[in-house]
């Protein structure tokens, strides 16, 4: 391991990233063992496709979250940004089809039976189709650019803390998306709608699992790009500096405001890029709850990947692995717990995130001879942990086992804490 890490270190892979890789391997192994119908083995193809799809879906805007975090900020709005940009795309498509331009792009033609019908998307020529899609996606990305700009402006000029600025867009953008959606549908399809169905051939094509390689490809390209920016360009160096010590960066004549602008625009635009795949994946634009709360997954991925929320620390590789790790964990949970997995997912993700981050800083913890269970807090912590263990045991096996688990955990931890205390003394 040391040897390997030494070797990998040369490749610029950090210990916590190695830890993640090992963890991923371990989880796959466990799942293979615990999953009765070994689907990772017998259906590895579908499984890898699905995990690839999900990882791309999360990873694309996790990279954005990472960029913002490294620059010393935070972006809580990406979930809503996905909904907003998705709505912009959907609405542009509606506008192009049913708006004033519609009659040009989708002329009324006469069908075989001789009665005249308006060409719909499905029957429009490839040129029109791609035109519509390209323009719409461009609109979506533009909306991302503007939202990012708004964030940067609020933070640099109005001096709002990033948390506040992006918190307000978190609530604001979603409602904006709903307004836009209702307006467009009621104006151009004269029936007010809460969501728009995405039937454009491009998205249907994209959704097809045969084309998931494209999702992964986009993710990889974006990751590579981000990697170059962060570790091979001056811009990247400045972003690390900004995150590490804004004051120092300023005094070194770095235009910190512009850097923030870049970071937040990058964050928002990755979200709007993700929204394209969200639309494809769900086949519908649903401003109400599309991507709701997913910003936290992105941040979690970045953090699990070793980003520090103080800023200045974080890598593309880490974030990539973080996203993959989270997706695999979630997937394996549902593989192992056959039915009723959904109620366990959150708990396991929570625990796993804690473990991952803990592991990534095990060295420091060891190094600083601090005790794990110091004083009263330590004792209460031990009790807490045993109680939670008991709770879990109870709902899996029953109450006797719960009692035993509780006592077991308590004793073990208590003994540990005690020896630890003795060590600290001697």
């Amino acid at each position: 391991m040391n040897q390997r890490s030494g070797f990998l270190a040369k490749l610029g892979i950090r210990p916590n990233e190695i830890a993640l890789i090992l963890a991923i391997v371990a989880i796959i192994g466990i799942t293979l063992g615990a999953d009765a119908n070994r689907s990772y083995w017998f259906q590895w193809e579908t499984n890898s496709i699905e995990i690839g799809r999900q990882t791309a879906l999360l990873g694309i805007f996790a990279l954005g979250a990472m960029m913002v975090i490294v620059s010393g900020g935070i972006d809580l709005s990406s979930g809503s940004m996905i909904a907003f940009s998705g709505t912009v795309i959907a609405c542009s498509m509606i506008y192009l089809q049913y708006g004033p331009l519609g009659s040009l792009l989708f002329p009324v033609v006469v069908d075989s039976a001789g009665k005249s019908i308006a060409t719909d998307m499905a029957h429009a020529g490839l040129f029109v189709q791609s035109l519509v899609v390209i323009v719409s996606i461009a609109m979506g990305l533009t909306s991302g650019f503007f939202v990012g700009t708004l964030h940067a402006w609020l933070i640099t000029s109005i001096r709002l803390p990033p948390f506040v600025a992006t918190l307000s867009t978190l609530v604001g953008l979603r409602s904006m998306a709903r307004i836009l959606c209702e307006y467009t549908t009621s104006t151009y399809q004269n029936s007010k709608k809460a969501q728009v169905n995405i039937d454009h051939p491009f998205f249907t094509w994209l959704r097809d699992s045969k084309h998931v390689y494209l999702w992964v490809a986009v993710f990889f390209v974006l990751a590579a790009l981000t990697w170059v920016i962060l570790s091979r360009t001056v811009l990247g160096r400045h972003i690390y500096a900004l995150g590490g010590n804004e004051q120092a960066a300023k005094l070194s004549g770095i235009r910190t405001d512009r850097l923030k602008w870049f970071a937040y625009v990058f964050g928002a635009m990755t979200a709007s890029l993700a929204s394209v795949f969200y639309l494809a994946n769900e086949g519908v634009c649903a401003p109400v709850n599309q991507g709701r709360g997913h910003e936290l997954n992105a941040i979690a991925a970045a953090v699990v990947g070793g980003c520090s929320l103080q800023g200045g620390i974080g890598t593309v590789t880490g974030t990539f692995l973080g996203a993959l790790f989270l997706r695999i964990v979630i997937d394996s949970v549902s593989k192992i717990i056959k039915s009723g997995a959904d109620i366990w997912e959150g708990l396991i993700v929570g625990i796993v995130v804690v473990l991952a981050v803990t592991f990534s800083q095990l060295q420091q913890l060891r190094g600083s001879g601090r005790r794990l269970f110091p004083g009263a807090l330590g004792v209460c912590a031990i009790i807490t942990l045993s109680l939670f263990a008991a709770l879990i045991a109870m709902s899996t096996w029953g109450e006797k086992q719960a009692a035993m688990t509780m006592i077991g955990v308590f004793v073990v931890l208590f003994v540990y804490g005690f020896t630890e205390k003795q060590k600290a003394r001697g």
Partner: protein
Amino acid sequence: SEKKEDSTVGNAANASSNAKRRIVFVVNTDDPFWDACREGLKEGERHFKLADSGLSASMEVPDGSIKGQIDRLRQLASQSDLAGVALSAISADNPSIAEELENFQKKGIKVITVDGDLLRTKYRANRKYYIGTDNETAGEILGKAAAGILASRNKTAGGYAQFAGYTDNDNARSRMDGFKRGVGTAFIEKDRISDETDRTRAQENVRNALSNHPDLVALVGIWAYNAPAIARTVESAGVKKNMTVVTFDAQEAAIQEMEKGNIDAMLVQNPFDMGFQAVRLLSAMVLNNDSVEKEMFPNTGTDADIYTTGLRLVVPNSGSPLKAEDFDAKVVEFMKLDDFKKWLTKYNLKSS
């Protein structure tokens, strides 16, 4: 103009300008299902000339949590221009909701429930009437349909999984229970999976169900968006030929999927009619002309306060083993997909 009318603040404006009294339809959450209902509402508002009697009808769309609906009811309670309330209860036996309705009635505001009724054994008095369909019967019908299809594919045993936003939400539960009864004991329910209305999760759930339970023969979509989620996943997993897919509600996407042959049967409620009838009944109650009430609720006894809007069982245009005569025409209207689409276009609806 027409559009003006539709845009949100359009009727906010004319609601506040000449102080009308309002009939408000409070739904459970923002879902395409209610788009059709909203159309019905508008249609009713026009058809029964509410404006002439100083009334207006509008729809309130809370965020889908119980608190959301309660808060919305309370907010309405603190407004003085309320004449009638139609509610699609998000939880049948929730005391807070029941009490809020009670308070409305105390204030002389007319209250009915639509689509989602309160627990009749407990809160029958908290609303005057109920318009809609009994979800349990609906489920049962779909169950029968599923059994029929399975039989025709000479599947006599196997498992099925049901998918919903919240598996314990009342309408979901009664639909599921209904289905369970309808499909019979030959088939075992493997799982009820919730996705918290997150569509990505919805698709994952289907995927996992498929890989977790190799012996699945049928998938049941309980909430509107589960239909396309199931259909697409089944298609991309390439297991359509030995999988029976039956769903509730007819979203745009669901209809397309049925055209593609990825859905074998849809049980469709009639939200448009719900909206329409709600306006008709409430306006009548407000202007207390009893004739309408008598007409809508002729019979006496236990179900004297129930008006059932139509149920439709929609099947693909060709190749469906199901026959109209298998189903009680009084309860459910048997339809081929094309007839159904005709009906939709008649009221310029995209979904139902």
